Every structure is written in structure tokens, then in C-alpha cells.
């Protein structure tokens, strides 16, 4: 059941809406975590839109607020394409690393994984289990060791093996912890002694509220996020915060996660995302 279904049947085909209908639409946008300020702005714009119907108008406005940046993987010109996966605790980084690896493997690419979460208990084992399942090599170091040195080693392995992709899993960290953010910067710098990092993917959990914007902003400031993986879209949350991130920061959602298995993963498709958001 989409969030708009109840309301949408009311406005479907309507050529204009009353004030209270628009307010209801505003509150539906709020409900999907788009946030009060942006929701208000979207409604104001949709009201002014010259589209045939309010429904169409809102859809166009939503589309217009999505990022215009490319959603393709940024590939390395030569050598392994290096992807760093980051995010706050529990958003689905490790699972997404495995899913992305499986996806690329399905395209006949050669992938190496790096278990640079040396902090959380059994995080390395978790990625190893995925590696075993997928038949993909996982580079790891000592528990509680230096994540940068694991990442460095993995870069050398990927380079030496002429792998197509290196994907680095990192420990979850809250964006307001400066020391942990600095650690991430170090991981990046150290890897770049061997291989340039092509993508920094920030994993955002679709159940996240407005805080997701703060996450995206601060991770971008510290290590330059190039794309978003939006996970847990299989739940009842619609992930509207990702739209807010695209609108505010221009960072494109590149992938979506829709379950716990490696197949529950797909490149971002804006029509189906907006449909999920609004059931239009």
C-alpha cells in the first residue's frame, strides 16, 4: 500500500485541488520523510505548475528536484575501479558491498573485497561469509587493526591481480564523530597512494528521517561522497530523505537495496522510486 493511495483516489483526474487537499498532500510528503521545508516548497511549486492535473504537476516537480548527475558507476580509466562504502552504523554497508560485488560479478567483472571494518565485533567474518558465498576474495587484517592498512593491502592485491573492481567495506560511524571521520579520510588517502578512489558510496537506510541529510552533508564534506545506496526499501519506509538529499546536495542515488539477499539490489530507477514514494 502506497502512502498516497488513500488520498490519490480522491485527486485522481481532478483538474484542481482545494486548499485542504493541498494541505493533505503536504502532509503525505512529510510522511515519506521529505522534510517540512522541502515538502512545503514542492507543494508551492506544484500549485503553480501548468500541468494538466495536480497529480502530473507534482510528479514533474518531484522529477525536477532529483539530481541531474550521472548515476553510472564512475570507472577508472585504467586499472581497478575502486569503491569506498561508508555510512552510519547499521545502514546496510556490508550487505550492500556484497550485493554490489554480486551484481558486478554477474556482469563478468572481477571483484576484490576489502574488510576494512576492523572495529565492530565479527564484521570481518560477516564479509568473509559473503565472500565465501559469492566466491570472491576478501582481504582482511587483524581485528582492531588499522583500517587504512587493510585498505592499502587490498589496493595492492587488486592492482596486482588486475581486478576490475575493488570494493572497500568500512566500519559504521556517526557523522558527528570527528575522529572517526578523520580516520575515514586517512583510509582514502592511504588507498590513493596505490589506486585513485573512483566512487565513495554513502549507504542510507530508507527508514532514516531528516538526519539523513545531515549524514550526507557531513560525509560529503569529509570524504566527497559521489553516490548513494538507499537500502531497506522493502520495508514500510519510502526513503523520501534520499529525495531531500538529491534536491539539497545534488548527490545521486545510484543503487537501491530491497532485501537481505544478494539479488535484492538494483540500479536506481527514478520512475519506480517516485512511484514508490507517491504511488502515482
Amino acid at each position, binding site marked *: 500500500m502506497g502512502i498516497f493511495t488513500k488520498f490519490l483516489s480522491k485527486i485522481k483526474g481532478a483538474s484542481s485541488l482545494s486548499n485542504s487537499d493541498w494541505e493533505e498532500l503536504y*502532509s503525505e510528503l*512529510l*510522511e*515519506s*520523510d521529505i*522534510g*517540512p*521545508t522541502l515538502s512545503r516548497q514542492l507543494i508551492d511549486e506544484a500549485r503553480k505548475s501548468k500541468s494538466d492535473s495536480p497529480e502530473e504537476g507534482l510528479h514533474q516537480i518531484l522529477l525536477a528536484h532529483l539530481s541531474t548527475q550521472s548515476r553510472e558507476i564512475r570507472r577508472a580509466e585504467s586499472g581497478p575501479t575502486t569503491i569506498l562504502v561508508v555510512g*552510519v*552504523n*547499521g*545502514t*546496510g554497508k556490508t550487505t550492500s558491498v556484497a550485493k554490489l560485488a554480486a551484481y558486478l560479478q554477474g556482469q563478468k567483472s572481477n571483484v576484490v573485497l576489502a574488510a576494512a571494518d576492523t*572495529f*565492530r*565485533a*565479527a*564484521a570481518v*567474518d*560477516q564479509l*568473509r*561469509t*559473503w565472500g565465501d558465498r559469492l566466491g570472491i576474495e576478501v582481504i582482511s587484517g587483524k581485528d582492531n587493526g588499522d583500517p587504512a592498512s587493510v585498505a592499502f593491502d587490498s589496493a595492492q592485491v587488486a592492482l596486482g591481480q588486475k581486478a576490475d573492481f575493488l570494493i572497500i567495506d568500512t566500519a559504521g560511524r*556517526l*557523522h*558527528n*564523530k*570527528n*575522529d572517526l571521520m578523520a580516520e575515514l579520510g586517512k583510509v582514502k588517502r592511504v588507498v590513493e597512494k596505490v589506486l585513485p578512489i573512483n566512487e565513495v558510496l554513502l549507504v542510507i*537506510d*530508507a*527508514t*532514516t*528521517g*531528516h*538526519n*539523513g*541529510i*545531515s549524514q550526507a*552533508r557531513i560525509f560529503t564534506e569529509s570524504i566527497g561522497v559521489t553516490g548513494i545506496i538507499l537500502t*531497506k526499501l*522493502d*520495508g*514500510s*519506509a*519510502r526513503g*523520501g*530523505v534520499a529525495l531531500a538529499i538529491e534536491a539539497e546536495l545534488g548527490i545521486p542515488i545510484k543503487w537501491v537495496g530491497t532485501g*537481505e539477499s544478494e539479488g535484492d539490489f538494483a540500479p536506481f530507477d527514478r520512475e519506480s522510486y517516485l512511484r514508490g514514494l507517491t504511488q502515482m
Partner: protein
Amino acid sequence: MFESLTTRISGAFSSLRGRGKLSASDIESTCADIRLALLEADVAQSVVENFVTLIQEKSLAALPEMQSGTNQANAIFEIVNKELIEILGGAARRVRFAKNPPTVIMLAGLQGAGKTTLAGKLAKFYADQGNTPLLIASDLARPNAVTQLQVVGESIGVPVFAPEVGSGVGDPVKVARDGIAFAKSKQYNMVIVDTAGRLGIDEELMKQARDIRDAVQPDEILFVVDAMIGQDAVRTSQAFLDGVGFDGVVLTKLDGDARGGAALSIASLTKRPIMFASTGEKLADFDIFYPDRMASQILGMGDVATLAEQAKKAFNTDSAERLEKKFESGEDFTLEDFLEQLEAMSKMGSMSKMLSMLPGAGAMKKQIDNFDESELVRTKSIVQSMTPIERRDPKVLNGARRARIALGSGRKVSDVNSLVERFSAAQKMMKQVRNGGMPQGLGGMGMPAMPKAAPKNVPQKKKSKSGNPAKRALEEGQ
């Protein structure tokens, strides 16, 4: 731009305080500000509407009886504070212990909420109080969740019942049932059951959660929820309430910058109290949830009560008492005392977290977030490079001595100078505190002077109830 709930609400009130006599429209505009602040903090829409309507009604009703000016604003502030505490669940509730042990606690929640880490924290919390908990590894879905729980259990010396390797293998219901039998036979007095994360809309997995519940007959089911959750809190908490039911809520990742929203929504929507708060990745970063303290934090009044408790835990009683005596007799606080405190402080956890509990910390959020934890270590190494005489009487610190200390600690002479300077500033501040005033601001941030082990012995005027909120919190924390 995202602004924290605290900043927004204190902003609304400081502008209210700035006005003369308040009118109904002033109240309405303040309520509009509060509404926006709550929505930006992800409080569920229906909760926001109810809350704001209530505040508005109560404030308008009280308006004619209020004295004009600042007092009016303060009266409204008090109304907001009271209602906040109310929707956060009133008084803190504790876990109900079973008449016939073991007391069984079952955890449930979405994927990634932080259940496994929390299981360890709960176990440590209760083991520290002399209980004998057993952890049961019933998350057999997520790869290596079992291993994770084992590592956690080992680090705190709590046994883990884990007959299945997990990662997709084994029956979580059977593990749970067997775990309870095992706990009974070995006479553990408490059992904490970790379960796999599941979505509220996943009927099959919700049924599995019910089966686990029926197998273990928990005394408490705790719903574990990430403090960063947005509007989905409404649907998800309702789904868990309908699907398995729960008796209390645990908020995790409260050390992020998303304070308040989820707490307000879930407590108010489910009428289940928030019982614990998890505030960091270390197993000690965990505490009972106090609605009044949370309300006071949301309103920018700090959380002196928690700070005092943590201090009490970290400082050993002997040295604390000695310091108190010194403090009361007006003796000088020396660098030696300071070193001792620095050491105790490292035990208390992250400095920025402690600083954020101080009243007015909201306004210094940026600085606090940017607090460089390694500064503590550096400061410590400088003091450690001093001789006992120097520590007791920093006045002897001439150029040559300072150069030697710099060399010994691997710091620059200017670092030593600035430490000594800040220390004497802190000494002054301590005198000010002793003479009854609260220090202004946070003092030298690089060298936080921890005035007391616990505020209970600070000589205070008992009567002052309504004045400085910081003071009041201090009184109430006793």
C-alpha cells in the same frame, strides 16, 4: 538547513523572552516555531499536532494569570518542559524481575537497529549489578551475528548460548527454547535473547518473532529502535506492537545528532516507556532512560544529573572525598589532582559526550562535536612529564623547566604554556564555583576542569527552585 531541535526550540524561547508583554499571537507564533522544529526532528506528524495543540491551549489558558515579561516566557517554557516529560513517558521504569528466575528479556526490532550490541550492553549493565545473565544467540539470519554476540559476550565475561552457527543455518525458535532450559538448569538469573532484525511488514518473520516469544515467555520484550528513524516510526512501532507486542523501548545511537524525534514519537504513539538509551559503540555507553533528563536536553538545559552520575562511577570514592575536602576547605586544586581526574575522566567515555551534557551545550554544539579527544592524552602527557613539585606548585615553572617538560612529553613549549595558563584559569573557576556561582560557558575546552566527583556535596542553597535551569537540574539530580 538542518538545525537541531534544541537550537530551534531555544531560539523560539529566547525570542519570546525578548518580547514585552505576551499576546495570544506571540504564543501562536512560538507554537508554529515549535511545530516546525519538531517536524524537522522527525517527530511523527500526529504527535506533533497533538503536542502543539496542547501547549497552545495550556499557554493561552495560563496567559491571563501570568506575570508579564520574562516570567511569561518562563511559564510557557515550564509548560513545554512538563508536557515533554509527560509524552516521553513520565518517570523512568525499570525492568521487572521475574519472581522465579531467570528474568527473560527478549529484544526485537528492524534490521540494523543495534540489537546485538545492545544485548551485550544490557548483559554488562546487569552483570555489573551482580546478576548472572546468559545471552542467547537467536539471530541466525544475518551473517555472523552469532559470532558477533560471542565476541561481545567474551569481552564482558558473559556466557553465550549459541548451539547454531547461524548465517542462515538453524532454527531460532528452538535455540531460544533450549537456551531457556539451559539457563534454568545452570541457574542463571537473567536471560537476554538476541533476535534477527525484521521488517514490520514481513508477516512470516513477525510470526517467527511471536514463536520465539511464546517459546521463551519473556518478562520484558524490548523494542530496539534507531534514534535516527523518521516518520516510519509510526508504522513500524505499530507493526511490532501488533506483531509481537513489547513492554518497553530502547533507543540506540543517541550519540548522533538526531536527538529527540524518535523518542517523542514512539513513546507517545505506543504508550510504552523508553527504558534504556544507548549512546555509543563502547559497551559502557548505555544507561537507563530518564524522560526528564531527555526533556531537559531537548530544551537546552543540559543533563547535569547524568554527568554527575557518570563522574561518581568513574572517580574512586577515596580520591573524590579527598578532593571534596580540599574543595570545601578552600585549598588549591593542583595539577596533581588534575592528573588524577584526567585519568578518571578517560574512564568516563568520550569527552564530547560529557561536555554535551552541560547546560547551554546546545549553543556550543559545533565546538563540542569538534572536540579533539586526543587532546586529553596530550594534556595528560604534559602533566606526567612534570615533577611532583611542579604539579603542586606551577609557579616554579620557569623557562628551563617548561622546556624540559616540552621535551619530555614531545610537545611544544607553547603547549606547556597554554596548559599552565588554562590551568590557572580553571583554578579561578573552581573558586567561583565554590563561592556559589556556576561557571560561565565551558571554560578552557582543551582542559576541562571537572569540579567535583558528584554535586551532592556542593554547598547549595536548597530553596532556589525556578532560577537558573542548570542549577535546578543539579539540585534535582541529587
